[in-house]
Structures are given as structure tokens and as C-alpha cells.
């Protein structure tokens, strides 16, 4: 099946960078993942969850370490499971505790990264994990692409189902509750979706910058839009545009793809900042 997809890609995009299989995989990954980053980032920014999504990257770090430690299960699976659990625990404790959200996320985030480092550095074998820090395009396998297809459909369906309630929640939690919205449920679904998308992309985007992809597209889109539809459109376009251009640039200049994508998003953000006063009513 992957073979036929590769052939179609070669016909549609007859460029030099498309000749390599790893670039085809990377292209497909970008095609599937960047729209999701664009969609989810809208509510990450609106719900002021930038710190939370940052901690998910740290949680994924421990997930990788545990996956390696267990050895038997596929690393991606253990990563996804751990990240989802991690995000759900934070969301739950955040809702039950009276301590400030910052503090709780800070505690979990630093614990996760410390545990991850402890396990990874055990026996002095840390170097083989360094790739997770900056991400590695070559690490995308055809199996990953198939998993990404599943994630893509799953997140789109979830987004169609929970978005309205999430939007109300982003305005005010008490107000959302008064309209019968199950706040904890909605928050948990959103957190789990974020965890999944971070987990499946962290290997090629890199731990250090994955959070930028969940913040920058929407941050840029907010500067130039006034309603939800345009907000989504601009956010998804920003994410996909920087994704593709970043991928191609990183190929020709031999740079880390994740970092290039993030820098491009940042450039778009600063450009939108300049035109903000013309666009926002």
C-alpha cells in the first residue's frame, strides 16, 4: 500500500527532494500532522495552556525512557500510552487541587523530565537518546505513517465533537458549567488529544521545540483574525505552510527539520504582529 502512495507522490511532486523514501515519509508525516497542530493550537492558546502543552513534551520524554526500559512493546505505543496518562493525571489533579495551575504543571513537568533523564542516563547510555532532543526525520517509518493516519482521523472527529464546548470553556469555566458542559471530561479529551499528537511527532520534531508548534500557528492566526472560522483557517495554513517549506529547506540546507519549521512559524508570527492593527477589528 505504501508503495502505491509513494508512486502517486512521485508523479504529483516530481522534485529532486521527493526522490528519497525518507523524504516521502517525512512529507506524508508533515501533511498529516501539521493541520492537527494548527487545529489544536487554537485552543491551546485560547485556553492559556502553553505551559501545559510544554509539559507534555517532558512527559513524552519519560515515556520514551520507559518504553526503552520495557523493551518488549513498540516504543511509539508506550510513548502514546504514557503521555496520555500523564496528561490526564495533570488535568485531574489540576481540577481537584487548590494550588495554582502553574505550580502543578511545574511539579509534574520537572518530575517527568528528571525521571526520564535518570532512566536514560542509567549505565551512561544517554547519547542514543540525544536524537529525541532535536528530532530526526530519518526516524519516520511507514508504520508511523499508518499510525498518523489513524491519529489524523481520530483528532478530526474529536475536534468536531468537543470543539464547541471547548470554546465555551475557554471563555469561562463557571459559565461553561452553568450550560451543562462536563468541564473535566472536555478538558481531559483535549489534553489526551494533545498528548497523542505530541507523542507521535516528538521523534522527528524534537522535544526542545515541539511546544512551539502547538503555540505559534494559533498565536500568529490570532493577530489577523476576528472569528473562529478564520482563526482555524489561518492557524492551519500557518502550520502547513511552515511545515512544507521548512521540510524542503531543511533538506537542501541539511538542517533539523523540526527547528526549521518552528523558525518559519515564528517568522510568520512576527509578520502577523506587524499587520495586526490593520486586521483586528
Amino acid at each position, binding site marked *: 500500500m505504501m508503495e502505491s502512495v509513494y508512486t502517486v507522490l512521485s508523479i504529483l511532486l516530481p522534485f529532486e527532494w521527493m526522490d528519497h523514501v525518507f523524504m516521502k515519509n517525512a512529507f506524508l508525516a508533515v501533511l498529516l500532522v501539521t493541520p492537527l497542530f494548527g487545529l489544536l493550537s*487554537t485552543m491551546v492558546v485560547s485556553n492559556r495552556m502553553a505551559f501545559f502543552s510544554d509539559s507534555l513534551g517532558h512527559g513524552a520524554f519519560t515515556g520514551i525512557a520507559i518504553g526503552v526500559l520495557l523493551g518488549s512493546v513498540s516504543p511509539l505505543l508506550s510513548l502514546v500510552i504514557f503521555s496520555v496518562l500523564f496528561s490526564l493525571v495533570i488535568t485531574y489533579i489540576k481540577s481537584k487541587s487548590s494550588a495554582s495551575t502553574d505550580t502543578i504543571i511545574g511539579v509534574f513537568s520537572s518530575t517527568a523530565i528528571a525521571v526520564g533523564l535518570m532512566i536514560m542516563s542509567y549505565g551512561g547510555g544517554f547519547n542514543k537518546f540525544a536524537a529525541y532532543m532535536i528530532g530526526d526525520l530519518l526516524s519516520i517509518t511507514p508504520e508511523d505513517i499508518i499510525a498518523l493516519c489513524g491519529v489524523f482521523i481520530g483528532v478530526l472527529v474529536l475536534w*468536531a*465533537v468537543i470543539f464547541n464546548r471547548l*470554546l465555551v470553556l475557554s*471563555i469561562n469555566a463557571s*459559565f461553561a458549567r452553568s*450550560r451543562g458542559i462536563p468541564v473535566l471530561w472536555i478538558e481531559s479529551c483535549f489534553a489526551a488529544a494533545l498528548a497523542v499528537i505530541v507523542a507521535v511527532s516528538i521523534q522527528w520534531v524534537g522535544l526542545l521545540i515541539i511546544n512551539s508548534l502547538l503555540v505559534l500557528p494559533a498565536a500568529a492566526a*490570532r493577530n489577523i483574525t*476576528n472569528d473562529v472560522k478564520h482563526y482555524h483557517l489561518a492557524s492551519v495554513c500557518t502550520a502547513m505552510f511552515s511545515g512544507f517549506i521548512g521540510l524542503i529547506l531543511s533538506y537542501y540546507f541539511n538542517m533539523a527539520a523540526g527547528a526549521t519549521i518552528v523558525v518559519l512559524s515564528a517568522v510568520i508570527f512576527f509578520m502577523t504582529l506587524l499587520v495586526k492593527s490593520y486586521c483586528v477589528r
Partner: protein
Amino acid sequence: MFKKILHHRAASAEDCAGLCCTKIEDFSVKIGRTDIFSHVNLHIHCGQLTAIIGPNGAGKSTLLRAILGEVSHTGTLHYVDAKGKHTGHPILGYVPQYLRFDVSSPTSVMDIFMACLSTRPVWLCSSKNMRSRVLKNLTRVKSEHLIDRRLGALSGGELQRVLLALALDPIPDLLLLDEPVSGVDQNGLELFYEIVADLRAKEDMAIILISHDLNLVARHADKVVLLNKKVIVSGTPQEVFSDERTREIFGMLAGVSTESGVKA
């Protein structure tokens, strides 16, 4: 517009003979080891505006949040509608205190209405029917011109009117107003209360209002409840404002309000 309201009045007058009521029985809320309030009993009739007054920290907002089911509480809430059926939980409308939210959020008034009223995802679908329904809702609070404005670009008074319009669809059995116009200018404040007074009369709705503005309470409320960890006094504005215990809690302020209360 006027026709519509008159029509509505006819319909609701038929449904509700003024017999519907909400009974709050023995509500207590404890957070940690602190009693926020205890043994609160309230009886709220439709078409009545019940004002809850009390000093800061008296548990007023918590009481509303307990009614909303947002904080866990002991005690029960009974609702009986005009025909004596539909007992259970009333439909609640809630207008929160002046909302603090990110003013840069690209969400229009239309978006937030659609998010509240429809299951179709706002980012994907749009609907003409929905737009006319939202316009109708906004007309009720004299804000139809705001439909395409960004939430963050609304003034305090405009935002509270939009939130009121949201709380009114579906028409609630019990409308909860938590200091809805603190920090809103005089014009906005008067317009807001004008609309609320209208609603009480026309929709035969039970309203609970928390307010620190005792003059306003004296002017608009049918019943006043002084809350301070428990119900201290309740009754008509005159009764409550002339009560010794009210004077004790509010000091000189109560003296001023009694006068206007008697006048009203």
C-alpha cells in the same frame, strides 16, 4: 419586535400561573474545614426577583455555584413548574461576574452563541437558521448590532448584555445573576436592569441576583435575603433594610438604603 414580546407573554402566562417555584432546602457548603455557609433555605417564586446581599466572604457567589452544581454541597433543590410537573432540576441561566478573559481571542459574538446552542462545530459549519435565532436572542437585550463583533471588543455593559442573552436561550426557569454589572458604567447598568425587570414581568422567570448596590436592590427586588454564612434576615426590601441585624452588618449604608427602600 414588540409583537414578538407580547406574543411570548401570552404563551408564558398560560403555562405558568405563578405557581412554579424553586425550593432550596438546607444547603450547606464546606470547603476543607471551613464552613462557607450552612443551612440555607430559600423559596423562590417565578416572576420574583430575589436579591442576595451580604458582606464579602459571606458565601453569596458560592451559593450560586452550589445551585449550579459547581461546588459540592449538602441539601436539596426542588423545582416545581406551573402544572406541578417537571419536578427535578430547573433549567438554569447564569450571568457571571464581569468576566476576565483574553481580549485578543478571535471569537465573535455569533461564534459563542453557536458554540452554546448548536452541536455543529463552529470552526466547520455555519447556518442561516442559527444566525436568525441569535439575532432574535440579541434583540431581546437590545444588542443585535453586536452579532459580528469580537468578544474582546465589547464594552463591559455590552458583554454583560450578550451574556444575559446567552443565559436566556433556552429560556431558563431560574436565572442567576452574580453581580452582573459590577464595573459597568451608569448607562450600561440601567439598561441591564431595565431588561431584567422586563424579563421578570414578561417571561415570568425566577431570578436570583447578587448585588452590593443596596439602592438598586431596594428598587428592583421583590425579596431580599441577607446572607452571612447563613440566612440572617429575609423578606421584602423594607423588612430587611429596617432590620437591626442588617444595620449591624452594613453600618451607615443600611440607613441610606432604608430611605430609598421605603420610597420604592
